[in-house]
Every structure is written in structure tokens, then in C-alpha cells.
């Protein structure tokens, strides 16, 4: 049985003239010692979900439980206050107590829980050493750098050995270099302490590198839950496909023609047939599909061949090891990654799609991608 269970959770906010549904039918389970990431664009409800787990907000429906303890349940009229949940949280803005020094900040949760002075000092020192804060214990938060404040916030959270560790975009205020090293340290720390962790972020790179599993949220519901590899390799819909991976997956809207038990499409005069593995996924009645091909699965060929497509290069981004190339073909734009052949802007090149690594999705009803 998993540690944290969330069943059919929903949250509505009432404003003066309307009701906003922030979350609907959220069901997920987090295993013990797992590093679980809640990923999604701004406003998808991921921070609300974290606040609900922390108990800072009450759900409008559904149930949250940790082990055998029910944290929140609308139906059973249970709501345990945040202070009785033994959870710890790190906020995006750190939320350090500005009138206390570093040691007092880390000590605060222990002091409030009435732990004896001797024990407290030892625990504070241990946490401070773990996060390399033992030299700045007497400093006030105002005197610290962003990275140090961030570490104080983490130290304050881990010092009392919580049963659940919640992080709300903790790295978004750090510069790129510090973010990468902190990300690494955070992962190591979590594995060493073995604290079950829920991490909220809008950054898919953070999610991919940190998470044992990821729940991708969009518009208040879960699009997909899985390991980073599952989300990358087997996205269930076009939202997951384009959200994970950088540059995002190319999506082509295609009118497929069924001919001789083969699906195919014609682009720029070239007739391309879909492999059987993709054809199996298409319903017989479907006329229009979205074909998804990751930029790394498109290759520039020096010579045109039977299934190559001619495109015009519109932009180049050199990243050092590899180059991202943007191109258009019949007003459809496509991006691809090339490591050896780098064309000029305006040049016409021929590309080949690796359709065995492509995905097909149903065209969403409302939005035009």
C-alpha cells in the first residue's frame, strides 16, 4: 500500500460572481520514499494540490490520506490542521522568518513542538551541517544570498524528520548554474534521508531530472502519471507530448487517406506511408490525426530519397554540441536537432521523418494546435 493516497479530489474557489474549479477528480498515490513531481503550466492547479496536501486549504470533495490517517475528507468531515500532519514545506519565496537568525529559523519548528533545548541544538547543527550552513548560523536571512536562504528553508523543513516533504517551485528564484547544482544536491539529500517528497514545478527539465515519477497536470486535471521515461516515450495525448521535451515535439495535422490497407499522407508531393505500429492506433473512422515526431527523430539527408521532404530553413540555434534547426514546408513549421549538418538560413534541405519513433494522437475537439 502506498504512503500518500489522494482519491477523487476536487477544489473549487468561489469569487464574488462565479465559481472557479481549480482541481477536479485528482486520483494519485505516492509510494514511500518516492520523489514525486507535480508538473504543469502556470495555473494548472499544482500549487493548490500541494496546499491541499499540506492542509492549508480544505478540499471541496474527495479524500487525502497518509498511511492509515485520513488528512482531509469532505464526506467524513475530517480536516487535520497542518500543524498535526508532520509535513514540512519549502516555499518558492522561502518564507524565512526575517526577525530570527538562521539557527532560530531552523530551530523554530522544534521549539514550537516543545522539544528540549539540548536535543534542539544537536538537531539544528546536524541539519545545518548537512546543508553547509554551519558558518552562517548567526546571520539574519536578510544578510544571506539567495542560495543560502534556499538552503535555510530546506534545513528548516528537514530538521524535524517529517513524514512528507513538500516543495513548491523551490528553485525558480535561483540563477541557472545554482539551480542545476542545487537540483543535484536536493536529489542526493532526498535519497540519503529517504523522505517521501512531493515537488511542484513548471519546469519539465527539473521534473525529468528529479522525479521518480511525474504527474502532469493541465487545467485542474491529471493528464498522465508515470516515470519520466514513460512520459517521454509514451505520451498519452498531444498535451503530454508537447509539454515534455525541449524543443517540443513536432505536431503535424494530417488528413489521412486509407488506401490498400495502408494509411498515408501526401506532403509537398511526396507520398508517405505510416508504419503498421502507428496504423494500429488509428480508428478506422478517423479522417484527421495529429502526427507527433520529436526533433531528434528527424534527420537531414544530403540526397533526396523516396520518402524525403524538402523544407526551407528559417532559423538556427547553435547550442554547441548540437544545433536546433527551424524550417517550414507548405506553411507547416518543423524543428529538428542536427549535430553534423548545419545548413544556412533560407537554404532548402531534404529531411526524413523516423516514423517508427513517431506518435499519433487524436485531434482535440476544441483547440487548434
Amino acid at each position, binding site marked *: 500500500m502506498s504512503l500518500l493516497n489522494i482519491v477523487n479530489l476536487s477544489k473549487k474557489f468561489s469569487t464574488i460572481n462565479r465559481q472557479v474549479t481549480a482541481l477536479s477528480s485528482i486520483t494519485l498515490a505516492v509510494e514511500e520514499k518516492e520523489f514525486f513531481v507535480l508538473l504543469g503550466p502556470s495555473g494548472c492547479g499544482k500549487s493548490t494540490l500541494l496546499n491541499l496536501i499540506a492542509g492549508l486549504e480544505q478540499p471541496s470533495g474527495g479524500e487525502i490520506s497518509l498511511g492509515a490517517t485520513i488528512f482531509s475528507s469532505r464526506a467524513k468531515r475530517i480536516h487535520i490542521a*497542518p*500543524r498535526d500532519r508532520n509535513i514540512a514545506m519549502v516555499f518558492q*519565496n*522561502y518564507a524565512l522568518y*526575517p526577525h530570527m537568525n538562521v539557527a532560530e529559523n531552523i530551530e523554530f519548528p522544534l521549539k514550537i513542538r516543545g522539544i528540549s533545548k539540548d536535543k534542539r541544538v544537536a538537531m539544528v547543527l546536524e541539519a545545518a551541517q548537512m546543508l553547509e550552513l554551519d558558518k552562517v548560523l548567526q546571520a539574519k*536571512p*536578510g544578510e544571506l544570498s539567495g542560495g543560502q536562504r534556499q538552503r535555510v528553508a530546506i534545513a528548516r523543513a528537514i530538521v524535524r524528520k517529517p513524514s512528507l516533504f513538500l516543495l513548491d517551485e523551490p528553485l525558480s528564484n535561483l540563477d541557472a548554474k545554482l539551480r542545476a547544482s542545487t537540483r543535484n544536491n536536493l536529489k542526493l539529500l532526498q535519497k540519503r534521508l529517504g523522505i517521501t517528497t512531493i515537488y511542484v514545478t513548471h519546469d519539465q527539465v527539473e521534473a525529468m531530472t528529479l522525479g521518480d515519477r511525474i504527474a502532469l497536470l493541465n487545467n485542474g486535471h491529471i493528464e498522465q502519471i508515470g516515470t519520466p521515461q514513460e512520459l517521454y516515450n509514451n505520451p498519452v495525448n498531444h498535451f503530454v507530448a508537447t509539454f515534455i521535451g525541449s524543443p517540443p515535439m513536432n505536431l503535424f495535422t494530417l488528413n489521412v487517406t486509407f488506401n490498400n490497407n495502408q494509411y498515408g499522407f501526401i506532403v509537398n508531393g511526396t507520398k508517405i506511408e505510416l508504419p503498421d505500429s502507428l496504423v494500429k492506433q488509428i480508428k478506422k473512422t478517423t479522417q484527421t490525426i495529429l502526427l507527433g515526431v520529436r526533433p531528434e527523430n528527424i534527420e537531414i539527408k544530403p540526397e533526396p530519397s523516396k520518402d524525403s521532404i524538402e523544407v526551407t530553413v528559417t532559423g538556427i540555434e547553435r547550442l554547441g554540441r548540437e544545433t536546433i534547426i527551424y524550417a517550414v514546408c507548405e506553411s507547416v513549421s518543423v524543428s529538428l536537432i542536427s549535430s553534423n549538418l548545419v545548413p544556412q538560413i533560407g537554404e532548402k534541405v531534404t529531411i526524413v521523418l523516423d516514423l517508427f519513433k513517431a506518435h499519433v494522437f487524436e485531434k482535440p475537439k476544441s483547440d487548434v494546435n
Partner: protein
Amino acid sequence: MRENLLERMLFYTGLCVTFVFILAPVTFMILMSFSKNPDFLGQSFNFTIRHFYEIIYTRSLHFPEYLANSLIVSSISALISTAIAGMGAYAFTRFNFPGKFILLVGILALSMFPQISIVGYLFRIMAGVGLINTRTGLVLPYTAWVLPLSLWILISYFLQIPGELDKAAYIDGCSPLKTMWYVILPVASPGLFSTLLLAFIFSFNEFMFALMLTTDQAARTVPVGISLFQGLHGEIPWGSIMAASTLTTAPVVILTLVFQRYIIQGLTRGALKG
């Protein structure tokens, strides 16, 4: 370059006008209090501290008693109103309860009643409970009178304190009351100090209630006391009045100087990324 010069000239002219406008009466007051012949401007100035000596040592003037009354009544009123306003502001900014907005506006509306319109009833109430000419009889109305102001000042201070500090405190194990005590009030201390100071100054300067509710030096405050100086001698003792005013201004100035450090200090320095 020319525009720059004009800008600077305007700036310094404005500064001078403001300075003169604000400081001229104060300078006049201090000069008169040290002058041998304080009745008219333009006469030769001869330094003396006779007026100060007089108001402190003339028993019949009761100035020291007035000053003591003023200090005690104003301090207690300021402390009580700031304490109540602090808790009130925490509740108003942190919790949702029905009628919150109406209550806030109501408090503001009540504070807009002119003093003169309530002083008559106030006198009858105080007479009824036997508090006429007592310090308590001044502390109670003063506290009520400065409370709306204190509350509104503190609400604006508390609103600036990020809600994430509250959340962090809740998660770290605090009840709402502990959150207020350990986190919000200490963080708001510059606001609390300036509110305390303002409440003190307001009570210290109050005239109408003190005039109506006191009868002699047992509770009479400085503003009323000074206004009664003239009656005692037949002529208007400008020197004594100015000396008394100067002495009365001193506590307020000293308090401001002592507390300005806390007031100016950044409100939530270092709490957030900043």
C-alpha cells in the same frame, strides 16, 4: 543643463518653503521661551531660563502634575489601543468572517464623528460611573478614540506581510495564535512602534475630552493646563506658555528620535527572495 539647474532651484526653493513653514512656529516657540521680554517680536533678545524655572517650581501652576498626567494617560492609551489594534489587524487580514468589510467601514465611520458631538454624552457617562477628573476617565475614551486609527494603520502594515510566512508557521506547528505571537507581531514590530508613537501623540495632544472630563491637577493634562495659564495671572504669561509648550514637545521629539530606527527599518527584510 539649464533644465537641470531650474529643476534643482525649484527643488531647493520648495524644500526651504516647507522647512520654514513647518519649523518657523517651533523656532518662534523655543526662542520666546528663552527670552526675557517675550511679549513682542523684534525687541532685543536676552537669554534667560527664568520661564522654565517658573513653570517647574511655581506650585500654583501645577505644570509637573499636568505633564505627569499627560505622559501616563497617553502612554497607557497608546499601549492598550495598539495591543487591541494589533490583534484586530491580525484577525482582519488573516481570517475570513461574515461582515468583515462592513465592520471595517463601520469602524472608520465611527471615527469620523466630531469629538464635540459625543463629548456631552461622554461627560454624562463618566459622571455616572464616577470617573470625572480621574486618569482612568481619560484613558478609556482616549483608547476608544485612537483605536480606529491604530487599527487602520496596522491593517495596512499587516497586509504587506506575505501570507507565505503564515503558511510556513502553520506547517512548522503553530496555531493561529502562536503564528501571530511568534511570527506576525515580531515581523510587524516597525509598524507596531510607529502606531504606538502615533497613538501616543494623538492622545498627548488631545484637548476637548481633557477639558470636559477633568477639573483640576488630579487628572488635567498639559494642553488644557497650558490654556488655563492665562487665567491665573490676569495677563497672558507668554514666556511661561512657551516654556511649557517647549517642555511638552520634548517627550514627543525624544520618542520619535528613539523609535525612528525601528520605524525606518525594512518591514520584511530577508523574508522573501528580495
